[in-house]
């Protein structure tokens, strides 16, 4: 099955990387992303970039958006372009197709994140590295490694789930955008939370320490993704996909 997963994933990645995204956006849009987040913004931030909240957002938040921009196409796009039924009529198992699509979206998000971070390091060192090599601190490197995978995985599993159940790519993208708004909602509602509650949370977080918070978040993300993938596996029924 592993070979089959790689076969599906490789074909998906080839289409994404060689031809751009399925909505016809140029493959050069990737270069723009790398240019903005790997060169322009780091230059604006200077050597503080390696510890700046924006660099954290690049590995902790941007993978979600990058993956969500392509994952809606995974099943809805195949259905829209009438390629899904032919794929379902092959020898590939349900799991090989599902995990192949998931893997392609995950790899896209992770590799793009790591490329952006590497380019940003090169940029910072060329622009501001006169007093020695500038690197991300160890915690940031570890966080970037773990969370780029987990956040890309979260976006990929939500996207595949949505894409399985929607008739068109546009509809899948609308659902993904709504989902993203819901994820932002808690941040928008922070101002309505009583100050004393916020102070309580703040105190608790300060006492807990960043490592514990990071591990806790990683475990929560992993559990959520596992549940989402389990649901997607249940929903992946050839007969349903064909008749939908």
């Amino acid at each position: 099955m592993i070979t089959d997963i790689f076969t599906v994933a490789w074909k998906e990645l080839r289409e994404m990387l060689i031809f751009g995204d399925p909505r016809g956006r140029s493959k050069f849009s990737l270069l723009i992303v790398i240019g903005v987040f790997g060169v322009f913004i780091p230059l604006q931030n200077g050597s503080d970039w390696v510890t700046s909240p924006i660099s954290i957002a690049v590995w902790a938040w941007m993978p979600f958006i990058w993956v969500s921009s392509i994952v809606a196409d995974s099943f809805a796009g195949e259905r829209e372009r009438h390629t899904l039924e032919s794929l379902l009529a092959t020898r590939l198992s349900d799991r090989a197709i599902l995990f192949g699509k998931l893997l392609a979206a995950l790899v896209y998000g992770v590799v793009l994140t790591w490329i952006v971070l590497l380019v940003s390091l090169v940029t910072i060192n060329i622009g501001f590295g006169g007093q020695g090599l500038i690197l991300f601190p160890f915690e940031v490197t570890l966080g970037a490694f773990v969370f780029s995978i987990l956040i890309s995985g979260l976006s990929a599993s939500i996207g595949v789930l949505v894409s399985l159940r929607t008739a068109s790519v546009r509809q899948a993208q609308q659902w993904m955008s709504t989902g993203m708004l819901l994820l932002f909602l808690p941040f928008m509602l922070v101002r309505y939370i009583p100050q004393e509650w916020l102070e309580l949370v703040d105190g608790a977080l300060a006492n807990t320490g960043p490592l514990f918070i990071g591990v806790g978040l990683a475990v929560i993300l992993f559990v959520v993704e596992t549940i989402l993938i389990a649901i997607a596996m249940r929903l992946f029924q050839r007969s349903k996909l064909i008749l939908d």
Partner: protein
Amino acid sequence: MMQERQDTMNAIQTNQLTRSFGDLKAVDRLTLEIPRGTVFGFLGPNGSGKTTTIRLLLGLLDAEEGTAQVLGFDTRKQADEVRVRCGALLEYHGLYERLSAADNLDYYGQIWHMSKADREKRIRELLEPLDLFKRRDEPIGRWSRGMKQKLAVARTLMHCPELVFLDEPTAGLDPVASAALRDDLASLVAQEGVTIFLTTHNLAEAEKLCTQVGVINHGQLLAVGSPADLRARTSAPRLYIAGRGFTSQIVEGLRGNALIARVQQHKGELIVDLNDLTRSHEIVTQLTGAGVQIDEVRKEKAGLEEVFLRLVDEEKQGEE
């Protein structure tokens, strides 16, 4: 896990296979036996249950009642084993339009675990006779529908399947492209020697390609046999009589003749379905005796198209 395979000479065997969508019985108690090596044409009008039958046989849909075995495997319990050994060109060609022709075939070759060398060899083997090999590196998005359809047929054969399902392979093509694809299909079929299950409502296609045909309408199998058998079984010999003076009285007089099964007038010709072709001279005598001036008399057996229309017509009358 080793899957048990039934030893059978039949590529396809169904027994009372039934599938409904709401109140509509898409496939209704279908019982079929298709021997290996046969090119089987499944004829029926749009919505008659042809595509649903293919989906059931490939294990893409579950049957509500009845059983189906494809290449000795139960389509319900061993659908994966069925799909490993089959190739399918379904309602849509299902090609990836941004990939090149070679990439499309290569992807399907990889799906079937073919080695790189085997894939390259097979791509040449399939595309050369179809005149597509020189264009194998072009993205197929701008290709004509006929070329895409040819490529889709090649993709179906890529992994040398034992059984191939072709769902209306020439649908939507212009007559020239259809004829060209039919020729290509005929030579590929001869060359590959596989069992073919082909659905169509194009009867010329079935006559050209198929050794056995089945006629389906409203999910029910109306007849099955070789095209010649079906013609013999369901169609009377026919006389086409051109001339002048076919009054309604004369036509009514013919209808009373026990030799005649049916009489119709079409574009000044009288079309007479006979019960016994050897006594056709008696009809001519009757007409000339009644004062008809006969210019031409042709004897013909009905084509598959007429057989098909008659079967569908008989089914309709049966329902009424």
